[in-house]
């Protein structure tokens, strides 16, 4: 743990922090998704960047209220799917090849089998595998990249220190503004959060 008062508190000295603790941020607690939504819109309009909402269940429309940008995930998933299709085709083309093929680039002799008199290079027979690998690659990429983009798995988070915050997984709705936000000033931000009409505002140490 940090033992010195950080730059943030040094330059923004309205609220002295206890020695030996670094401020992670401020949390504001709300009772209903509607209150949270209205507050989130104000946070968005106030221009904060490093802040988040914490809810016990998915709240429709919160993305818009928070002003979240479109995710790039679909493009990666599409790319992964297209990769799957290509890989499946190449895999089958290589394994079915009789001899050197110019497109192969290397000398390959696969395991060609004569199946019901079909040519070794039979696209219709390849398509089921191409279809399956497309889905496999997209699904795996989707899940893994979703974890990566969200910074998961994350076993520890400073907000876990707050007893109040425990209700975020039960019946309360929270907005957390982090101290690293360029617009963050401990006192001003606290006052701002109070204008959002929360049940409570609390400082959380890092």
């Amino acid at each position, binding site marked *: 743990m940090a033992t010195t008062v950080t730059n943030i508190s040094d330059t923004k000295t309205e609220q002295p922090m206890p020695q030996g603790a670094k401020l992670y941020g401020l949390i504001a607690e709300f009772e209903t998704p509607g209150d949270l939504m209205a507050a989130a819109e104000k946070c968005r309009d106030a221009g904060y960047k490093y802040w988040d909402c914490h809810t016990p269940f998915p709240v*429709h429309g*919160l993305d*818009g209220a928070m002003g979240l940008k479109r995710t790039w995930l679909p493009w990666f998933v599409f790319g992964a799917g297209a990769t799957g299709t290509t890989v499946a085709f190449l895999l089958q083309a290589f394994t079915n090849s009789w001899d050197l093929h110019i497109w192969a680039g290397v000398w390959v002799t696969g395991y060609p089998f004569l199946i019901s008199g*079909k040519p070794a290079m039979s696209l*219709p027979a390849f398509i*089921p595998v191409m279809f399956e690998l497309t889905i496999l690659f997209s699904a795996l990429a989707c899940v893994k990249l979703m974890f990566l983009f969200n910074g998961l798995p994350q076993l520890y988070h400073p907000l876990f220190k707050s007893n109040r915050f425990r209700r975020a997984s039960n019946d309360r709705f929270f907005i957390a503004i982090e101290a690293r936000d360029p617009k963050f000033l401990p006192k001003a931000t606290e006052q701002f959060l109070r204008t959002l009409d929360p049940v409570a505002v609390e400082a959380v140490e890092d």
Partner: protein
Amino acid sequence: MGHASTHAADLGTQNIQLPAMALGFRKIALAVAVVGLGGGAAVGYTGAFGTDPGHFWRAYLIAFLFGLTMCLGGLFFVFVQHLTRAGWSVAVRRPAEALAANLRWIWILFVPFAVLWMMGKANTLWVWADMNALRAENPVEAGLIDPKTAFLNPTFFWIRAVAYFAIWAVLSSFFFRSSVSQDESGDIKISERMQKFAAPTAILFGLSVTFAAFDWIMSLSPAWFSTMFGVYFFCGCATAGFATMILITVRLTQLGALKGIVSREHFQDMGKLMWAFGIVFWAYIGFSQYMLIWYANVPEETGWFLARQVGGWGFFSFALLFGHFVFPFLGLISKWMKRAPLTLALGAVWMLCFHYVDLYWLIMPEIPHDIGEMKNYGELATKYADTATHFTNPVNFMLVLGVVGAVVAGTIGTLSRVALVPKKDPRFAESLRFENM
């Protein structure tokens, strides 16, 4: 975003009644129906554009099935919503109900086939209708079909046809009337009743659509068979039905109705259904059917696909693959394409065009009679290299526009008599609040 729940929807007459402009469009649609069907019949029957009776009747069958699949797709949407107790779809259900309600009179468009039958010329389309003529002309094919005559005979064919039309009329009428009567009473029991009957409806719908596809399309090549054919035809119903629903809903919102009721969230979900059933599932089933037949390589089965590979049909098959699957798959995969009414409507029009191409590809090609005498595929391809598809013959378009005009006029007529939304459905509020994640 996120505020649909904060203000109540405008249920004033202006907002949920058919805009006056649509009634003018109904007159145009009726005129198109009369001119298209009348002109198409006159031109096609006399052969003025060089069509023989075989082409003319097949073109009419395609046109009829195009209109029929639009309505069946509407019925599918309606009962699936009740089957799954869906909340999101209530705001866009009424157009689908009105579309399905055309199934009450669609049998009228099938009457010309009865006339054809009474003239004793049914074998222009369905060669099994006159087995004696077939035996004289093509004894090999007759030998293959003979064991099937227990099913493929005129009497049973017409009993089944009447049964399909009766089933569709009763089902569509039940859902339409129940839903409209709820507009008055708001009785929750009506919803429960529709949910209860949605399950048997699914069974009846599945069987009737499957067997109608066997009877009317697959038996055009009676020696051929594919157990997947019914599902393939069902995909066509979904394509046509969802695309038409999307176009109706987009048009209604353009005309200023359904403000604050139908949102981009609903468009996105209708787009998803069209994408999933009309594009991906269609390709999945179409390919599965092709691959099994290609792999097994049984002569009775492969002939059907060979007929769709020779001459102009080869290009046609690829056009279908790319136009009905690859391009719209990529074009509508993004959520934003489905949310914007303009791009979604363009996608729907595109899908309707390729649904027509699909039906044309199913119905128009004929398996060459001498296919069994060919030594290899090359010989067949050479001999039939000049096979033309006659796709651009105006008779095709006159007939299909005529049928579409009739269906559109019928739908607008139905919608003009009722509210545009099931306003007292217990899940109506849920539908207004609906948001995709």
